[in-house]
């Protein structure tokens, strides 16, 4: 099966600002792909190029086996997009907008529309100007999730949702994944990406800096190991791949490279383990590592 999205060497400049600087992205069909990056790194620009709203300056872009600029109309029948900042017609009601967007995409699932309105607790008779940011987002989400499409492009879709609604959103994405649909989720909410995504691409300053499965990315970082030992602590600093050892009595803490875990555990077992906690790196740590530019220090998103 051809990948849903293949982007390579994508370049886009706005005047003198180079928003995308050779970005690569590959999203396989049927996967939930996390698209991570700090503010201003080019996530939205990439999505808008994928939608044919902007034209790429250089590089190749294939979306659902088509050219997003040239074949925009036919491709858009097969995808639904939820923008990061949802702008709606102030004098139309939420229900009208959902129907409009759904019908433009080629039809809504009426039962799913009702069900989603219910699940997201959204009143469709309100005018859009009276909706809060989260409710505007729900309108766009309901319209997207109730459409019969192959690909969902979601730009920070939960930024305005409360935790209950976020949970509901995760369940919806789970259903879409099981139905074999492809989802691209741009976000900087790491727990969301961790919970939902099969693979992630991390971008920074318009370039892809890391791409792969979460498991694959974790290989790149160290696992933290905290242990309570029965006997005296062995000299761990001689072991390859073990870093930052701290010993306080029988209590020991260290970081270990993924490949060196086996040796460390053996050494600890020889000393007699009473308690052992090993914590894999969170995406937070991956994130910090990639965004920590030498100077000036990047703000933590």
């Amino acid at each position: 099966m051809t990948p849903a999205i293949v982007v390579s060497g994508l370049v886009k400049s706005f005047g003198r600002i180079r928003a995308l600087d050779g970005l690569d992205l590959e999203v396989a069909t049927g996967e939930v792909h996390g698209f991570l990056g700090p503010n201003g790194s080019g996530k939205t620009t990439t999505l808008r190029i994928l939608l044919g709203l902007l034209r790429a300056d250089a590089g190749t872009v294939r979306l659902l086996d088509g050219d997003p600029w040239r074949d925009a109309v036919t491709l858009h029948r097969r995808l639904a997009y939820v923008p990061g900042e949802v702008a709606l017609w102030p004098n139309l009601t939420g229900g009208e907008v959902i129907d409009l967007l759904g019908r433009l995409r080629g039809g809504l699932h009426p039962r799913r529309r009702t069900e989603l309105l219910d699940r997201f607790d959204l009143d469709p008779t309100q005018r859009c100007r009276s909706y809060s940011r989260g409710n505007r987002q729900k309108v766009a989400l309901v319209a997207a999730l109730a459409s019969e499409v192959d690909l969902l492009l979601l730009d920070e879709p939960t930024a305005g949702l409360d935790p209950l609604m976020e949970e509901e959103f995760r369940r919806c994405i789970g259903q879409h994944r099981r139905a074999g649909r492809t989802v691209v989720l741009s976000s900087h909410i790491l727990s969301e990406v961790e919970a939902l995504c099969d693979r992630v691409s991390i971008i920074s300053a318009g370039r892809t800096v890391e791409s792969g499965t979460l498991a694959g990315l974790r290989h790149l970082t160290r696992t933290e190991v905290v242990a309570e030992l029965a006997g005296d602590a062995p000299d761990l600093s001689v072991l390859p791949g073990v870093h930052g050892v701290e010993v306080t009595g029988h209590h020991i803490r260290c970081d270990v490279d993924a490949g060196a875990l086996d040796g460390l555990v053996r050494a600890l077992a020889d000393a007699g383990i009473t308690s052992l906690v090993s914590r894999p790196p969170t995406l937070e740590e991956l994130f910090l590592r990639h965004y920590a530019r030498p100077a000036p220090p990047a703000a933590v998103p």
Partner: protein
Amino acid sequence: MTGTRTLLALALRRDRVLLPAWIIVFVVVAASSAASVVALYPTGASVAATALAVNGTPSLLALYGPIYDPTSVGALAIWKPAGSGAALLAVLTGFTVIRHTRTEEEVGRLELLGSTGLGRGVPLAVAGLVGVGTALVVGVLSAVALAASGLPVAGSLAFGAAWAGCGVVFAGVGAVAAQLTRSARTARGLTVAALLVAFLLRAAGDASGPAWLTWLSPLGWAQLVRAYAGERWWLLSLPLASALVLGVLADRLDASRDLGTGILVERPGPATGPDLRSPLALAWRLQRGPFAAWTAGFVLVAALLGSLTPTVAGLLDNPALQDVIRQLGGRQALTDAVVATDLGVLGLLAAGFAVASVLRLHGEEEAGRAEAVLSGPVGRIRWAGGHVLVAAAGSALLMAVAGAAVGVADGARSGRPWAGVPRFVGAALVQVPAVWVLAAVALALVGFAPRAAPAVWVLLAGAVLVAELGPLLRLRQWVLDLSPFTHVPHLPGGAFSVVPLVWLTAVAAGLTVAGLAALRRRDLA
């Protein structure tokens, strides 16, 4: 009233280009109109002939009001600019106040400002200051310019004060309208509706009586001050008092409501949108309200003008009148000439609708709502086409309705209301290609230079100036030719030629195609 000074500085900073530009336009128009009349009518006798002719023509009285002193050059000089300028100034001040109140509130900036140490009611007061200040500056500068062109000082001051008075009243109207609705667009619509009522009252009062109707209208007050014709200074208390009342009312309303809400409560709407099937349906849904309001306005104005035509027939033997009418653009029978002039004015107004309608594209794109439609399987041409079609068909329909209303009102006087309708509708539709050219210019700007798109309003204002004051200002022919409306045959009554209509339509079509092609190629905002 903490923060007034800071907020006023912010407002002036934001308007530092727009307001001075408009103020200069008003002053230049007043001064050049005065200068050309002073040069054109050196003797009192020629002024008197023109004044008598104008005062005997109800349709001219309706459009521009009477000339109060047939011996005063000044009274003639300000005859046309007085009424139309006061109306334009009313739009400027009213919209300025709305822009600094309801628009800010609607987009949420006022929430941010309100969370700072800003006194309650300060944003409204600052907006009012900007609106009133604009009116006063226009008044003072115009008075200076008129006096400098050789007209009496007292009359010049009265004229400036009359203009300023109208501007101040509508700053108050704008302030009240901004309290009533949640949407700035509706508030602007209410202001224009109030202006239309003021115009109809004045027009009816001046042209067909009873005369006291004029006294109910702020536009009437601007005339009743009688600049250069025995100034009635006390009359300025009317606009002052009503502006004060409106200001206090707006402040009370402002204090009584919550941020982001309007006094008029919105009802919940439909939970489904079965009729929203296409971009065209969406464009129509967004524009049908404004279109209905425009249609109602056109019917009222056209019917009023139409009902005033037959009485012109009795003045056929007045050579001075014929001269004036000829100067206004007509050639044959006076009734036809007057109707042709009326239809020319309505054509310019219809261009206003068409331009606003095309600029919806710009607004939708800027607000990010175009993205929502275009991320669906909708090509850009189809998206833009919806609004373009509403603009093109809507403006043609407005002109047809206007022609029919003129015809019915005209025919009703002779007991045969429908007899002249086809002829007048045909004459009205002649304006449509020129309307389309302006709409197409707007579309071309949206395609090629989206940020400059609102500049099309300047072009429309230029077309209005050329049509209203061009002959009077003795502008050179090539300047007059820049306006598409110059090329429209003067119908009914004038010589009909299809050639200009064909090439105007061709220009409009060419610009439309070019604009759409550019829109398809460029990045979206």
